[in-house]
């Protein structure tokens, strides 16, 4: 039936097929034992036949995407460019139908046109990145649109931004404004913490492999872009950790419990009783945490790196989950099965500073051993191989 499809539809569908292939290759290569992470693109190329033509296709599609206008306020873009946009939105829907047998419908795809555009652009960036020719242009447009929209769409875009936080932090250490000193004393450790990446996470990728493939039916684009985005974040996180740069993961125990529920497919509704299969799945996910954390992510542990399971509740005012570098960061809002379309935004300047202060406070608090002997420690370091299983027993 391909002769019935318009050229732009063929282009879009080829593009999404390419992204899918890249995603599959990356999925294999990133977690390969002993993988040389810095030449992942070369490994990915090995797995993809005709990557040369693929780069050409993705570049051509990227140019098309870059030239697309944003939809005007009234929801109807005029003239030729409006027609191009309409065609693009239609193609998005058709591709979603081909790959996932879902449909957005005319109203929704019009309402979510910015989101669709941003996710397509992110996919283009990720595709080019994993093929070894990253050009900032598509992502730059995503960031511009995020300013208009007040945030990034859930899924791939947010994951890409999280990856960028690690990447930027790593590049900053590689080319510092000031020479980096390894910590040798307590006061220096404080200095190091000032430049450490701080993560407050409810569904941490550092613990849960299944978080990579988490699917949400409200996504407007095929799952491959969301997975690829998360794998990009994973890759950057691993690169950062392996370079020995400081990072602290803070995971509230209660939130981890819920995350396991969510990944096992147990519904939010407290009245609903989980099925046996769901519970089995939950246990399986939990049991994978140790190997994932110790054998895949932290192959070595450097000073200034920690993963803490917080036993005490964060204060009631709450705080969105976030990944904070020293120059830029992102907050994300995690929600139930319904999902949020724009669930995170970048943090800069003083807002970033206040978030960092808060998390550094939590970090300090988690180090304090309470006086009362009957109470357990406030936080458990999951990097202690012996303590992991015991610590996770309750969750």
């Amino acid at each position, binding site marked *: 039936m391909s002769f019935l499809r318009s050229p732009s539809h063929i282009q879009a569908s080829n593009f999404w097929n390419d992204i899918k292939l890249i995603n599959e290759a990356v999925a294999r290569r990133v977690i390969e034992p002993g993988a*040389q*992470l*810095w*030449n*992942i*693109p*070369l490994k990915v190329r090995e797995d993809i036949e005709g990557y*040369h033509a693929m*780069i050409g296709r993705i*570049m*051509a599609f*990227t*140019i098309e995407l*870059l*030239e697309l206008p944003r939809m005007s306020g009234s929801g109807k873009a005029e003239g030729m460019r409006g027609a191009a946009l309409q065609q693009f939105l239609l193609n998005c829907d058709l591709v979603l139908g081909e790959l996932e047998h879902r449909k957005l419908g005319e109203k929704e795809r019009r309402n979510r046109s910015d989101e669709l555009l941003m996710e397509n652009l992110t996919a283009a960036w990720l595709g080019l*990145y994993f093929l*070894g*020719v*990253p*050009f*900032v*242009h598509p*992502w*730059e*447009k995503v*960031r*511009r649109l995020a*300013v208009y929209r007040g945030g990034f769409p859930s899924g791939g875009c947010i994951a890409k931004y999280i990856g960028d936080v690690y990447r930027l932090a*790593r*590049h900053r250490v*590689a*080319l510092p*404004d*000031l*020479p980096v000193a390894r910590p040798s004393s307590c006061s220096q450790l404080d200095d190091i913490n000032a430049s450490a990446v701080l993560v407050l996470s409810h569904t941490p990728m550092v613990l849960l492999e299944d978080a990579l493939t988490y699917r949400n039916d409200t996504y407007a684009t095929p799952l491959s872009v969301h997975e690829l985005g998360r794998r990009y974040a994973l890759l950057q996180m691993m*690169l950062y950790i392996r*370079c*020995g740069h400081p990072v602290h993961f803070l995971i509230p125990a209660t939130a981890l419990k819920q995350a396991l529920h969510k990944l096992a497919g147990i519904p939010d509704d407290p009245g609903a009783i989980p099925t046996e299969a769901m519970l089995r799945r939950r246990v399986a996910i939990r049991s994978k945490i140790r190997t994932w954390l110790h054998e895949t992510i932290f192959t070595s542990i450097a000073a200034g790196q920690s993963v803490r399971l917080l036993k005490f509740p964060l204060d009631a005012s709450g705080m969105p989950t976030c990944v904070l570098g020293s120059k830029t960061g992102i907050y994300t809002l995690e929600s139930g099965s319904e999902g949020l379309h724009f669930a995170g935004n970048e943090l*800069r300047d003083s807002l970033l500073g206040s978030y960092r202060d808060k998390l550094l406070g939590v970090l300090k608090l988690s180090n304090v051993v309470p006086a009362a002997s009957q109470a357990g420690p406030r936080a458990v370091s999951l990097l202690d191989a012996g303590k992991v299983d015991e610590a996770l027993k309750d969750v």
Partner: protein
Amino acid sequence: MHDSDHKAGFWTIKTSRGIVVYLALWLASLWLALNYYDYYVDNGHSAKPGEHYVWGAADTMVEKLSLDHAGKALGKLLRDAPAAHDTVRAHAADQASRESDPCAFARYVASQTALLPSPSQSENANRVVECEIGALRETIDDRTHPRQSLPGSLLKVLVVMAISWLWFHTFLLTNELKHALSRWRRHRVPLDTARFREAQQQAQADGCLRVVLPAIKTPRWREHRFFDHVPLALKWLLGLLSMVPPMVFAIAMHSVYEPAVFVMALVAIFVAAEHYGGLTDTEHELKDRTDELKSKVGTVLDADGLNEWRTELYGLYGNATDRVDAVIRYFDIDSAWWRCAGAADPWQEYQERCGCSNDADTLLSTLIRTAATVRFVSDQPLALLEGLARASSEERKEFFRALLGLAWNLVVFDMAYEDRVAKTFDGKAARFRIKISRAPCWMHVVDETVFQAIERGKEGNATVRQLTHDIANVDDRRALSGWARNNVQDFAQHGGRAEEYVFAVLRYAALDLHCQEEEDLALKRLLNQLGMKNYLDEPKQDFLLAAFDDVDERMNRSVLLSRDTAENLCTAVFSELLKRRLAKGNCFVEACATPSCTKLKHLLSELI
């Protein structure tokens, strides 16, 4: 108004000089005229007593002026016209006949003497004849010009020269005074911000909520209508004053030559001087208008305009203390760099040149001087790269030039950073960075100065304007520059690192050449793929291709480079960038990349 005039205030050296010259000329011409008068009288030009008594003569003239005389003359003119005409004709005929016959006068004298019958009568007659001869001599003396002596003539020439000069300067001075006056009327005492802030702090310290407004330093009274007429009055006043020396001269020479003729010459000088003054005035006006237009429209960015702007910008960069945020559309490459062609290591040569004082206008020496944080944003459209294989030779040239300029700037930024770090105690200094981002507005913000460039089609049509040019108020300047800076910073924030872009472009070029990841980097091949060949072949601003290198530093000489040298220089830019980036390194690549052996895959270290 010229910029220099603006800065100097309303009273300029030119004004003072004009007044001094005028006064000197006035005194000189008066002195010469008086001297001539004295000389004339001394040389016994039989001036009758009281002949040069001006007031008496004026009195007599006024006495002789009467309505009766005028009426009589008018009557004669109108009524006796035919008769008078006849008399005149008869008299003329009589004279003509007398002159035509040389003996007529003798006969006339004889006929007169024949009328005298006796000796006593003849004695009488002798006396009469002597009287007559005396009267005749006097008439002849009166009516003929005296013999001119050389000193007298020279003196006269000097006087006339001095007077004509004086007249020219009269009009020049009136123009100058007119302009000075208009400057004075427009002159505003700038707000003393330090004092204003002090006053404000004082007010706040006193617990006063009222905002202290700066005293109004605008003298409104200078704009009064009364001053509109001052230039004309000045013109008349100076004109009258300048009449004095010529009057003296005219009186002195009135009996030597017809003063009316001299006055006519004077009038001619007057008219010429007036025109001359008017012309210089127009010239002045034109410059005024050009400056005014410039402040409104801006400098046109053709080759000259670009040079002018670059000089201005580099000057500002060098003195900037806070931040430089700029959107760059065209990365300049110093001509000093192309002149390093002969050196074994052109970058070292360039650095040495910038270190010494004679190449102070290069980018590197400017950046070494500056204390500011420098951030550039540049738009490098992806579509150009994607379509490079299909592009025309001209487009490929443009693409390569943009990439070359970017890479060149990155190297210079790194050098400047190294220099900056070396100067600090703790090794901590702000980096110079370039970001790639789509920046639709073309602005340069240097501390509190904002330049806005406007693109008009092809290059050479763009103009640049300093938006803060006319904003005297510090707060307004700060608000505008703050807004512009935020704008540029937002572009930078969204963008990616320029190094990453350059590396990605190189890897992208390697795709079409089917380079192997493990082979040594064939930089020249990659660059040719990106349009270096087209860049060298097409005409360009940076240098000219020639059979041999000629990098002489004579004025306004374009650099001549042979093809090989030019190619080596272009490659040196990129290889230096690679060397610097890979040496800094990423912890993964340290082990495998050495400057002598860079493989294609090593470029990934920058990209991952």
